[in-house]
């Protein structure tokens, strides 16, 4: 059984079919990318997995759990974390505080214990702080630990969001355009981190990304979407050279021209 399975999922907004009869499965330990032009339905897939949209038809399961039965705040409890294309952080809090909120789902203490900081609250606080420090070390966020989010540069905030997602101790990490807006160096760092997240932490990654360079370096499997439909699925090289994918990106006339350039960047 795959870790994440979407079966014949369809979602409509009024007359527009945002996702059309999509079936896909992500195996444990994979780095899986969704690619496609703007409006292809990639983020919509994310929003269905995190239960902000309810598909009109089809099923979504995570590790055997029916995700469609859950409310959006229950999804993280299963170990699904997410970052956003437009960065959604707690702006009036420090980096450290943001990461500590990430531990919310793992807090197992009563109000009274927390209030007077007795019993399990002490040991658990230490545990949460340690876990968060590990993430800070992993992503080199030490210089920013106590800075307010509101004043941080874009690239750093992007990393903080990734750090917060990792603080929730996920099994599946959804990354919505992890490299968008990043410089070449920052994109390089992101690439190594995604590699390490999979190798060292054993976290499965599902990402939406436009940067095909990054996708072909870190992903095992790619699914190309257009108009809510699956165009192609396979290894990065297979998908990039698929005629339908080239057509969706460059228009019909482009096929013959790029036919020679198989395997090159789209």
């Amino acid at each position: 059984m795959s870790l994440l399975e979407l079966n014949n999922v369809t979602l409509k907004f009024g007359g527009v079919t945002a996702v059309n009869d999509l079936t896909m499965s992500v195996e444990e330990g994979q780095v899986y990318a969704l690619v496609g032009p703007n409006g292809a339905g990639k983020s919509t897939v994310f929003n269905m997995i995190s239960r902000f949209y309810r598909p009109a038809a089809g099923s979504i399961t995570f590790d055997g759990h029916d995700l469609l039965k859950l409310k959006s705040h229950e999804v993280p409890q299963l170990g699904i974390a997410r970052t956003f294309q437009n960065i959604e952080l707690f702006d009036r809090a420090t980096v450290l505080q943001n990461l500590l909120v990430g531990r919310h789902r793992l807090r197992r203490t009563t109000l009274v214990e927390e209030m007077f900081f007795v019993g399990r609250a002490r040991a658990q606080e230490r545990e949460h702080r340690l876990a968060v420090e590990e993430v800070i070390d992993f992503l080199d966020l030490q210089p920013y630990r106590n800075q307010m989010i509101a004043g941080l540069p874009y690239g750093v905030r992007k990393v903080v969001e990734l750090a917060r997602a990792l603080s929730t101790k996920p099994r599946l990490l959804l990354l919505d355009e992890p490299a968008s807006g990043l410089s070449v160096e920052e994109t390089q760092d992101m690439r190594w981190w995604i590699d390490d997240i999979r190798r060292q932490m054993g976290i499965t990654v599902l990402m939406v990304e436009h940067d095909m360079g990054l996708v072909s370096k870190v992903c095992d499997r790619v699914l190309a979407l257009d108009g809510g439909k699956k165009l192609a699925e396979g290894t990065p090289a297979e998908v990039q050279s698929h005629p339908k994918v080239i057509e969706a990106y460059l228009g019909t006339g482009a096929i013959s021209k790029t036919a020679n350039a198989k395997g090159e960047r789209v």
Partner: protein
Amino acid sequence: MEFMQLLLSGLANGCVYGLVALGFVLIYKATEAVNFAQGDFMMLGAFVMLGLVNPQYMGMNFWLAVPIALLIMGALGYLLDLTVLRHMFGQNQTAIVILTIALGFVIRFVTGAIWGHEPVNLHSPLALGDIRAFGVVLSLADIAVIIVTVIMTMLLWQFFQRTKLGLAMQAASQNQMAAYYMGIPVKRVQGAVWALAGMVACVAGILYASKGSLDISAGFIGIKAFAAAVIGGFGSLPGALMGGLIVGVIEPFAARYLPPGYSQIAPYALLILVLIFRPHGLFAQVRTKKV
């Protein structure tokens, strides 16, 4: 000695303003809505307590009645959110303002219908006796108000800094979307904020009624408390309390040293000055412009 006397009685009044202002800020922080019925919440809390304690109603023991009144007001706050305010989600701010003003009217007249429109006195053990020391006379109620407010503030502080629910409230108030992804049930948490605001209002109401007579117009104290919250910097809990204390202290001093009538105006004059010179309030947490 006169100075001390004015200061202490001003502080006692200011604590009540501060507690009502805390209620304003709690709800504003969590839901971005201003609850103009907060003063009437306080008045209702006082009447609920009176209904439990006074001999012509249930005649319960005062200390036993305190947690019950708190629970009733907490439940009421939660239910109000569940049945009315949650459905206003995404509506225009003005609509929510009008709604809460209307809620205030409803609370006032329902209270009048149940407990009457005449001024009444809560049978409070705090309302008995004065303490004289160093030439200053303070009623027991004034002292109780100050002590309870200090304790309440410390508990609320602990609650927001340390507890899972308190942190969830802060998170939900800053970014609802992100809060959902951290596993925080945002709507339920907002309901809990309304419950908390109801309980804080109840404490304020019990203290208010212990200090003097009570009638259904007591809720208009909310206007002064609103001024206090703005002076302190809307959105800051310690600011709300400090704003309340400042307004409370200004009143007796203005009454003593300024011509008659000015003590009524003084808090609002200060409000205007603060709005002109420090529009984010005296104790604002954020001073940069929100885009």
